[in-house]
């Protein structure tokens, strides 16, 4: 094969693209990452930073556990940036009987499937772990060691580590089109033509456009804008990341005392013009719930609200794997829960590109699952 044929181009400088470039470079693969804006500018840099295995779709759990192995040894991979990961515990409480039933059922299902990371705990345990909680709960699910990270720093960490291992990273470089000739991908960009034997499409909410341009599958990917609010600094009362069973809420308190609240609620996004809306009103129910859990939260002042552009699949499971065209791989469609998966996805995509067997099955994420 020509020297170009050995090359890999990764499109997209989010967590998936950066982690993929890193694992490829670490194994000696020649790799160039191309990002249309800046590294971590989109979902990967602005997300809630929740690093959780808790509550994942059962099909996604093996990948999530594999990713967690990497998170737990992150320092080996990305050095000091790993200090921006803060493991603690993740707790999803039930505030009503419906929530309790749901939680107990899930705990039983997971046990049956052989997963032991999620544990059901009763209210007495919850009250001792969260002494500032304002209401009694109906029990909840807990995962020790889940936590949160400063997303932008982690993405930078992977990008830097990739560079250290010889990867090239090119920012402000929009990929216009992808065509294949004689087994070689021609990648037309704002900064000229690139050629590579293999392309990995980690273009987030834009990935279906890339696939279309490459004449690959047509993916039913849709853009939305998950939202977050952050408050002023308040005394520390919350040592965990929290959610509520059968409600949409994610709640945590940063080391400096700021609360970050989001979870599920999403606004409109238009990825074609890099635009995402915020609608504070849509967050009001989640916030009401948060203020019920900790009455202190009601007094906290909102200082910022933002959103990011995220690509959603109809089944809310990502696309990870080989495309229809030779030498094209996909990793996108994380449907608002792809940050934690990032390191695991990067490793798995590197395996696929290098012809090795990923350590977990990617069957549930097959790119052709929507093609009849």
């Amino acid at each position, binding site marked *: 094969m020509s020297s170009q044929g050995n090359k890999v181009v990764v499109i997209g400088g989010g967590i998936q693209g950066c982690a993929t470039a890193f694992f490829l470079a670490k194994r000696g693969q020649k790799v160039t990452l191309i990002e249309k804006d800046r590294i971590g*500018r989109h979902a990967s840099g602005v997300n809630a930073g929740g690093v959780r295995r808790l509550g994942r779709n059962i099909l996604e759990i093996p990948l999530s556990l594999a990713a967690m192995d990497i998170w737990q040894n992150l320092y080996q991979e990305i050095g000091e940036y790993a200090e921006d990961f803060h493991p603690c515990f993740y707790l999803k409480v039930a505030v009503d009987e419906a929530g309790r039933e749901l939680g107990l059922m899930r705990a039983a299902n997971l046990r049956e499937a052989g997963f032991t990371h999620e544990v059901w705990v009763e209210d007495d345990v919850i009250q001792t772990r969260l002494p500032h909680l304002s209401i009694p709960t109906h029990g909840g699910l807990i995962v020790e060691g889940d936590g949160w990270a400063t997303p932008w720093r982690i993405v930078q960490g992977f990008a830097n580590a990739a560079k250290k291992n010889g990867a090239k990273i090119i920012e402000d470089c929009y990929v216009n089109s992808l065509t294949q000739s004689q087994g070689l991908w021609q990648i037309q960009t704002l900064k000229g033509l690139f050629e590579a034997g293999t392309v990995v499409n980690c273009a987030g909410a834009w990935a279906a456009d890339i696939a279309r341009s490459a004449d690959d599958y047509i993916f039913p990917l849709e853009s939305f804008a998950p939202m977050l609010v952050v408050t002023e600094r308040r005394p520390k009362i919350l040592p965990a990341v929290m959610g509520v069973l059968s409600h949409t809420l994610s709640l945590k308190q940063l080391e400096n005392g700021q609360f970050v609240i989001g979870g599920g609620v999403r606004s409109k996004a238009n990825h074609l013009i890099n635009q995402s809306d915020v609608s*504070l009103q849509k967050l009001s129910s989640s*916030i009401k719930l948060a203020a019920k859990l900790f009455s202190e939260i*009601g007094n906290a*002042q909102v200082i910022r609200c933002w959103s990011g552009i995220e690509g959603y699949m109809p089944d809310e499971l990502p696309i990870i794997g080989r495309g229809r065209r030779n030498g094209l791989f996909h990793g996108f469609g994380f449907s608002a829960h792809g940050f934690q998966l990032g390191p695991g996805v990067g490793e798995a995509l590197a395996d696929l590109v290098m012809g090795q067997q990923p350590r977990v099955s990617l069957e549930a994420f097959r790119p052709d699952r929507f093609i009849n």
Partner: protein
Amino acid sequence: MNLNHHYDLAVIGAGPAGMAAAIEASRNNMKVLVLDDQTAAGGQVYRQIDRNYHKNDKLFFLGEDYWLGKKQVEDFKHSSAEFFPESRVWQITQDKHVFFSRKGRAYQVEANFILISTGATERPMPILGWTLPGVMSVGGAQTLLKSNNSGADGAVFAGSGPLFYLTIWQYLNAGFKVGAVIDTAPGRLSWSHYLWALPALLQLNLLLKGLRWRSHIRKNTKYFSEVRSVSISGQSTAESVSFLDKYGEKKKLYASHVFLHQGVVPNVNLTMATGLKHYWCPRQLCWHPETNIYGESSLKGIYVAGDGSGIAGASAAILAGKTAAKHIVQYSRRPSIFITFLSKLKRYKHVAARPFLDILFCPPKEWRVPFEDETIVCRCEALKKADISSAISLGVAGPNQLKSFCRAGMGRCQGRMCGLTIQKMIAEYNNISEKDAGYYRLRPPIRPLTLGELASLAED
């Protein structure tokens, strides 16, 4: 609280522009809602005019221009517009929903038209020691004077601009002792000053008034002109001000209160967060929302009037508010070229002197970007100039990207105190224009909002 869900026109800000629009629109039978975060109508210029009028010693020292506002506030009160003071508007959506908080609760209304008349805000003057207790803006000092008739004897005023001289003049009239006035306006006039002074003669009254204030101040205070390198020092509060006088001699004055001012700029937080288009005004060195002569912005049905769309003063604000309301009332009938021309002509009378004032008081770089590395630039995150410079040197293309590098502009003031400084620093480092450096991307809520208030919007 008797609030409807739908209005013909929602006006944000009850200063001269907002009041004028509300009076005009309600006269034409429009259903008008007016929201303002102060406790009474009047805006910056006529702040607390109603209350002050009913005091025994009607605060004469505020000057006749202030008392001119009495009639407008009366007309406004007698109009059919519904007015809710103490209402902080924190979001306007493009489909014309207005969100605001009042007394611990949040509300939402919908309107066919929205007028944003949120006025101006003072340009920050980041010099060494500007964050010490005892230091505040001249506008802040004036606010205390208008709201509580309170002031500080022996205060030192540093800066320049019309509001600077007006406030000192009011301070003296009120009987407070002024410690010293440190005037930072450059002394020499250039040919362009003289050129722009010609049209300014159309507003001769305004110019003469300014000259009168200044000569009164020169006579009655310890006055230093053409001052450079001002800094404030003190242990835990302000104790002294140092500067170079016009002969280059180092001076030091003792003062526990120092008031700073470098002019005012449009308060663009709401207009930017609403997604209106803005442009960089090189003469006023600040961002303006794009509008046509009637105040309609880049979003149909959303208008901007008054100092919030470019600094032009109270009388221009009144005209702008009225003009916008007239345009809204006759929205379906597009005005003819002739009417548009007349509107422009009418406006010109109120803004003829503006270019002259703008270049006369244009803040030199020294007052926009601090000289010393230790000077705080972003107050909320306590970032010094050195912190910001080193973040910029990592390769930052604009203020938004800087946020991820050092959190500048991410605090509760939403960049009001650092945005223009940081924009300038980035432009200089990258050798690009300020316009190209751009500004923070602003997002709602643009006013303080507690989670409890936000939660009150949730339906049960």
